[in-house]
């Protein structure tokens, strides 16, 4: 998840002080380093009680046996002090459960390494200024929803001139030639476009994630891109979508991944920052 703290451009309507449900939760690792424990267990109402709540469905009628089945299921997962606090029939063939249990599982935090996208947050004007000054030409940025995904909401929010949540879209940036190919673009077509336009960055959006189809499609893109020799080696590869994290993006071979709550200026700042860094290398 990308933490964007409170860096809105300030032209949103009032009342933005409350919690914004779209934004990734504030993790605050940097500020709270001294508070970081070395290991954790789940927390109910006191340290190391290991309390966890579960809710699930079993495909069986609601009866005494169902309750025992739920209890056993959760015990088999390794939980202790299992308490089935609620059961209700959902039609004749299904039962719903709410269950509490305690888990002894401990996570060693010293072994966790999360790749994080680190770049400054520039304003619209700053991005344009920086690219003009340090690169001296417009960056070509391509966007598309590849595969069968017809949901262009995400890519449109980032590209459309008007922008999203009061934040201009990439099409408005004077320092970019931003082209949104929108939905139902095949991997092949997209790669052809990348070559033809000598793109500096490519953004792929995936909204539909049923059966992890998005992962297959994104992998396929990277594989085919590697086959294509005419693609500029410094092409910045970015993916985004409600179920995409920077970590997942890195695993799939992308340079960056943007999750829910991303604004166009975040993407623009990253592209500017990364392009300048690459130029320096």
């Amino acid at each position: 998840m990308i933490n964007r703290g409170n860096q809105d451009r300030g032209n949103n309507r009032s009342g933005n002080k409350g919690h914004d449900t779209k934004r990734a939760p504030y993790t605050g690792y940097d500020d709270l380093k001294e508070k970081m424990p070395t290991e954790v267990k789940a927390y109910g109402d006191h340290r190391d009680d290991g309390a966890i709540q579960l809710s699930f469905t079993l495909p069986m009628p609601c009866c005494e046996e169902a309750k025992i089945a739920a209890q056993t299921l959760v015990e088999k997962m390794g939980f202790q002090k299992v308490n089935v606090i609620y059961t209700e029939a959902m039609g004749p063939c299904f039962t719903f459960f709410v269950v509490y249990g305690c888990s002894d599982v401990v996570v060693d935090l010293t072994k966790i390494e999360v790749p994080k996208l680190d770049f400054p947050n520039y304003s619209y004007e700053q991005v344009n200024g920086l690219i003009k000054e340090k690169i001296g030409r417009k960056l070509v940025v391509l966007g598309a929803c590849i595969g069968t995904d017809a949901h262009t909401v995400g890519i449109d929010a980032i590209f459309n001139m008007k922008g999203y949540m009061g934040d201009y879209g990439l099409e408005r940036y004077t320092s970019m030639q931003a082209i949104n190919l929108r939905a139902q673009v095949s991997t092949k077509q997209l790669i052809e476009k990348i070559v033809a336009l000598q793109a500096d960055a490519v953004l792929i959006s995936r909204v539909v994630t049923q059966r992890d189809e998005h992962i297959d499609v994104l992998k396929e893109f990277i594989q085919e891109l590697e086959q294509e020799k005419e693609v500029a080696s410094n092409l910045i590869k970015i993916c985004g979508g409600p179920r995409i994290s920077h970590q997942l993006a890195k695993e799939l071979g992308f340079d960056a991944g943007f999750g829910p709550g991303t604004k166009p200026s975040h993407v623009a700042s990253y592209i500017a920052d990364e392009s300048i860094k690459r130029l320096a290398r």
Partner: protein
Amino acid sequence: MAKLNLDRDMIDSCRELAGDITHPMLVYINRHSTIAIERSVLRLLGFDDVMEGPDGMPYPVCNLITEKLDRKRLYHGVATFVAAIKKRYPRWNQSKIAEKFIRGEVNVDKLEEISAEEALLVLRPWIDRAIRHIDKMRYKKEEMREKYSSARTPLKYVIVATGNIHEDVKHAVAGVRQGADIIAVIRSTAQSLLDYVPHGVTTEGFGGTYATQENFKIMRAALDEVAKKEKRYVRLCNYSSGLCMPEIAVIGAMEGLDYLLNDAMYGILFRDINMKRTLIDQFFSRVIIARAGITINTGEDNYLTTVDAFDNHHQVLSSHFINESFAKQAGLRDDQIGLGHAFEMNPTIEDSIALEIGMAQLVREVFPRCPIKYMPPTKYKSGDIFFSHVMDAMYNLVGVMTNQDIQLLGMATESNHNPHLQDRFWSLKNASYIFHGARSLSDELVFSANGKIMRHARQVLDRTYKFLKQVSNTSLLDSIERGMFADISRTKEGGRGYDGVFEKSRRYFNPFLDLMLSGQNRGGRRD
């Protein structure tokens, strides 16, 4: 009950403006047909099989026929062509005609030119059979609705979307047992962009289940059965949109569906379907839908996912007026026009819930006889399913206190996955509690005169009038091109399916358009 003290003259003026906007479009629509309309005519005439296509895959014969047919002949309407074959080979049935023609065994040049009058005579038995069947399905629904009195509004609408029709049935039945009144089977991703309707029972789909005639039949039978057990009629909904809009209307009519999402504006803006294509398709779809006693649901609610819901409600209301005008021209009655709007305001706005009440009441009062379809919050939902559940509760409260007719129940897990069985269960429990607990709230409450709710509602109506005026001065197609709706711009010749649009020749013939639109051949209305 009228509460907002709206300016009725202004509402009338909005209706007139909508008429001015749709009139030139209807002139255009009348002069044109599309490949999808011709395929629908074939389906109605009984050409509902599949055959192997050029790539070795099975395709509906109606696709194979319309694609093989010389465009010049298609301009007269595919029914004219079928009638000419039928006249020459009176004993051939539909499969024989399809097979012979697709295999290239019909000498097309030897066929006689046939007038519309004669074509009607030749095809009359097939035409009558289709219309009788649609009427029969309609009466069956009406009987069921009378026998098992409907639930009180807002009707609880839930979606199923497993990809496997048999699994969908399980989810649907569980939902009905839990109180659902309407089951919508979400289609597989991108089915709207397929230029043919898949065939047969399907058990694989992405993000939904393919809309096929056989799948419709299976779900209809399952819902009728559970309705008998529950003594409550259950409505079935699907999607007549995309490149096969009129064909889905046909199979929906044939299989006794109750609701069809049907909105050209949605296809244009959100699926990039060519605007001319889908507006022409929409008209014929609605003629069939009107006859079949199906209620359309429109998709204006979607505008509020791309533009801000606080600032842009007038776009939704304007589009309602336009959609209503198109619907009436195609023969739909008020009670068949389910206009869609949504609870999508940013929850951090102060008084957002009060303002949502105002907007829901506004749509209710402007279209008092239409079954209004109210859509749940989606844009501001996240993985915090507990907060999402609270938003849905507020949405349900607003729905019942403003007398919405169709409440598409929100899911706490929206934006994460297609609803799990238990997600639907929480959601139904939430709605049942609130609808029951606040049943008379709408009768008990009045709004303070010149209060925040009333002022905002009047302002939106005022902006609607101005917006419609602007669209009327610009023309509908140009307004879309300029991105006036939902901030999405589409070009007149751009988007998918434009190559399927053609101008009708002078002897163009589509028996169903004429018969159904004039209400002829109708076995008495039941309402």
